[in-house]
């Protein structure tokens, strides 16, 4: 969708209509992204998304002039989540519950448990690393696009992603059998500090 294609200058009513159209079309994706960025805390994700969309609404005409507004709003969302994380970073990390035996491949319940474990492990990462993983694997952006969204270098994206994945490996471990080159087995269910 490209709201900006409607023209460079849009009136107030057009802007309101185009904003509603954008929210209708993108809110599900953005809300899931907010959920992932906030560590699946639904209330905080709603608050984050509402705040970001309200700010976007204020400058909607300007945002639309640059073409597709979604990357811009996505960037606002990431920045807001990092800001929020900075405010809350004194909060201590919560240990993951003991996972018991590792999930067996092909078992649907185990698969769900594995996803849950991964997402909870994701929530324990620093906001910057979490944002990199969300942009790379949820929004399916390339390293260059992720770097552009986060306003950092491609090298920084690579290193952040590498550190984040290494930490996830430690926390969540392999799903079925050892991962080649990982060198890390399944954890004991508690967060390990590097």
């Amino acid at each position, binding site marked *: 969708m490209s709201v900006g294609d409607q023209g460079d200058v849009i009136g107030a009513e057009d802007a309101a209509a185009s904003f509603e159209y954008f929210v209708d079309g993108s809110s*599900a994706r953005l*809300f899931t992204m907010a959920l992932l960025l906030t560590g699946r805390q639904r209330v905080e994700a709603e608050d984050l998304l*509402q705040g970001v969309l309200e700010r976007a*609404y204020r400058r909607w005409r300007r945002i639309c002039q640059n073409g597709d507004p979604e990357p811009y709003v996505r960037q606002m969302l990431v920045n807001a989540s990092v800001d929020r994380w900075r405010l809350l970073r004194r909060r201590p990390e919560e240990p993951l519950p003991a996972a018991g035996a590792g999930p067996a491949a092909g078992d649907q319940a185990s698969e769900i448990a*594995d996803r849950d474990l991964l997402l909870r492990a994701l929530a324990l990462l620093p906001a910057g690393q979490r944002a990199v993983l*969300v942009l790379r694997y*949820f929004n399916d952006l390339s390293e260059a696009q992720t770097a552009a969204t986060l306003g950092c270098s491609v090298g920084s994206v690579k290193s952040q992603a590498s550190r984040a994945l290494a930490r*996830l490996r430690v926390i969540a471990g392999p799903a079925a059998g050892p991962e080649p080159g*990982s060198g890390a087995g399944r954890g004991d269910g508690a967060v390990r500090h590097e």
Partner: protein
Amino acid sequence: MRCVMSDLERRLRAAMIAAAEQPPAGLMQAIRRRHRRHIRRVGAACVAAVAAVAIAVPPVAHALRAGHATGGQPAGPAATRPAPALSSSAPAAVPTTPSADACQPSVGQLASNWRDGSLRAGPVWFVYARREGYVRLASSAGAPPGPHRGGKPEVGVMIVEVDYGFRAVLTVAASARPYFRFLDGFTNGSGPYPLRDGLDSLTLAACPRGTPPGDNGRVSDYYLGFIIKRGSEAPVAVRTATAARPVRVIFTCRRRGCNT
């Protein structure tokens, strides 16, 4: 070109996609509510800012106008005295009222026609009071209104000239003492002046008659400080040795700020 995903990356991607949820119902309404709240907050901040400016500008503008009208602040000795620009929040910048017996021919030059706009009470001249209206002669018709209800104490300062050879005693009427006092020596640090810092009476002793004329003629110059409840009118008796009856003047401080 994309690298091949590792197992962990594949699992992570699948987990993220599986985590997709529907947005909360009424998202658009919530955004509109937030936006209205934001508009209200910004509006309130603007109103507060405008109110603050409206309160601050008249006294400052008046002080500046007074400065221009008198050809700027007197040079020379005035360099050691801050200009009479005042506000109740910064009384430390107000100049000192001279001590009662000091003889000072001049603290700087006024416009040559300064007497035209000034109010005369015997040998005492309230400079530009006629033009600005911050002091007027008391009329015989009724007493001046009392303290303005809810008026805040305001510090004011004016230039007063006393003819050579005279000694004038300014006494605040008893009824006005709860809301008007003179300030003798602005030594209150940075805090606001409370009424108790002021004086009920002040003596201005001009230089002897034989003293050479100063910049403004045969007069001694004084900065006269006072504190008054804004919006009030205070009767003051001006007594000199030669006059049989005191001259009564009314000091005022209008709602838009004290005149200086």
